[in-house]
């Protein structure tokens, strides 16, 4: 199988990538690569071998792409159980890079890359940048964190390979980010959407007019965000805001990317094979139906992931994209099955709350959800920062704003929740993923 480390991407045009390959050609490539990766995992990963043996399956039972359904799923628990290196298919000397996810509970999960894998990742990121119109000549401010988190280095390698000028500023130090954005004539920025909103807000305070800067592209990922958030960002700056999808377990950022149509994310399916399953039964769902995204890495060596359950809820879009890419699209990830808040028996996602809040005119996407328990009953309070756009000197207008927010949420969630208007900056800003939910239910019992 081909590797990409020696490929030069300067002057890269997406038409040269498999993005536009005829579908039968893509399916054949996928099947070849699936056979390779299943064999590799079977021969080198004992957990995978044992699972296949217990099903009386052999790698050569995979004769067509649909046979992937015979294979067992891989879950986050498998990564934890085999911590740190149990799912590696390469010997340590071949591994050139380790990343790890911040484990919110217990041990982190560790992911490995051979030099070919770094090449695969770079290839994916190059195509992502190209899809957002970023190329040689662009100045890319990479405000994803550099370190164990995959975001920083993933975006860095891709942007550099495509020939852009990369500013490896990493996350944090907001005033310096704004200075660099202005003084270095930045044209594209990579960070989390919530951090970009914070940058916009700080720029306003510093009297920097973001509209007048050459900045024209934002590539935002690492946390779910809504269409309303995109509208907010695009109207408060002169950029086009693109959603990028990825997860460390698969490769990092670069699994999927929006194109100029901003309507769903193209999965780079020559590297990452997508399926949608019913999260409860594990059964595959028909194209177009909403369920859990399952991904299989087709090109990675050090850590092949076979049918990895992402816990991200989305659907495959059956229609072809007008951009001409034949890569299938997923709808933007609105929620993760493990991000669900169950409150008084009702399932609620932070993204639903965000969309409802932003639907009320003038509100800013700075909010936090506080869960408490009082006399055995779950309580949800949503703190929303007051902005100059919505502030009035009249108590009546402020109470009306409060009522409108409660009403918008009740319509969206089917649940009456309390709103608390708070002062600007009352909610702590994050330089990476925003902390939207504070769950104090166990503490209050």
């Amino acid at each position: 199988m081909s590797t990409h480390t020696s490929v030069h991407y300067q002057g890269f045009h997406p038409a040269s990538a498999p993005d536009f390959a005829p579908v039968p050609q893509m399916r054949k490539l996928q099947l070849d690569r699936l056979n390779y990766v299943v064999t590799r995992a079977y021969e080198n990963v004992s957990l995978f071998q044992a699972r296949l043996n217990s099903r009386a399956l052999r790698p050569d039972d995979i004769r067509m792409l649909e046979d992937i359904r015979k294979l067992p799923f891989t879950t986050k628990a498998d990564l934890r159980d085999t911590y740190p290196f149990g799912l590696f298919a390469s010997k340590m000397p071949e591994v050139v890079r380790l990343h790890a996810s911040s484990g919110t509970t217990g041990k982190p999960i560790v992911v490995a890359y051979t030099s070919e894998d770094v090449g695969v990742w770079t290839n994916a990121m190059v195509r992502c940048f190209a899809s957002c119109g970023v190329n040689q000549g662009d100045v890319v401010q990479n405000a994803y964190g550099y370190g164990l988190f995959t975001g920083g280095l993933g975006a860095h390698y891709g942007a550099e390979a495509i020939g852009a000028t990369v500013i490896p500023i990493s996350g944090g130090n907001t005033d310096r980010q704004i200075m660099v954005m202005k003084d270095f004539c930045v044209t594209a920025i990579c960070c989390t959407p919530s951090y970009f909103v914070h940058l916009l807000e700080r720029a306003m305070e510093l009297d920097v007019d973001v509209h007048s800067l050459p900045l024209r592209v934002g590539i935002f990922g690492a946390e779910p965000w809504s269409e309303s958030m995109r509208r907010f960002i695009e109207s408060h700056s002169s950029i086009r805001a693109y959603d990028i999808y990825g997860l460390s377990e698969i490769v990092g950022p670069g699994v999927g990317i929006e194109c100029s149509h901003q309507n769903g994310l193209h999965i780079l399916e020559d590297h990452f094979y997508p399926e949608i399953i019913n999260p409860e039964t594990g059964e595959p769902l028909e194209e177009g139906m909403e369920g859990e995204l399952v991904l299989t890495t087709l090109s990675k060596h050090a850590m092949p992931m076979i049918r990895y359950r992402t816990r991200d809820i989305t659907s495959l879009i059956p229609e072809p994209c007008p951009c001409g890419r034949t890569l299938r699209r997923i709808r933007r990830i609105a929620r993760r099955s493990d991000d669900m808040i169950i409150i008084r028996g009702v399932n609620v996602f932070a993204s639903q709350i965000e969309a409802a809040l932003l639907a009320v005119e003038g509100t800013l996407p700075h909010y936090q959800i506080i869960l408490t328990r009082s006399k055995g009953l779950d309580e949800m309070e949503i703190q929303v920062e007051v902005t100059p756009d919505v502030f009035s000197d009249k108590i009546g207008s402020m109470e009306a704003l409060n009522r409108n927010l409660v009403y918008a949420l009740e319509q969206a969630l089917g649940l009456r929740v309390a709103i608390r208007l708070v002062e600007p900056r009352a909610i702590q800003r994050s330089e990476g993923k925003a902390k939207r939910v504070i769950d104090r239910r166990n503490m209050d019992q």
Partner: protein
Amino acid sequence: MKIHQLSLFLENKPGRILEPCRLLAAAAIDMCTLTLADTERFGILRMIVSDWEKALSVLQAAGFVVNTVEVVAVEVPDHPGGLSQILEAFQDTDINIEYMYAFPSERGKKAVLIFRFDKPDSAIERLKASGIRVVESDQVYNRIRE
């Protein structure tokens, strides 16, 4: 003549009012008068200061949500019936008083009333037509110093 009033959003928590006062003191801005409208969860601090533009930039730079609205100041003799004489000027008009507050001037002999009208321009015309004197903005500041 209209006067700029600053309004500030505050959470209803102990100590919240101290910070804006400190900031204005540090910038040598005099607070002529203020009033706090509060609900269970939040409050709105409304004030008239010696230099509203400077106060606005000081408070905004500190991250407060501040807005400015134009209010109308009227001086009345501090005796029974002083206020009702003014209110009568708005009988049978569609001018609405959103809120109002008062402070004494000339060592208690007179009172300055601050009105937030929904239609400040029509309100001023009406007051003048009724022979009621509207206080100019520099005079409001002076009234408090007298």
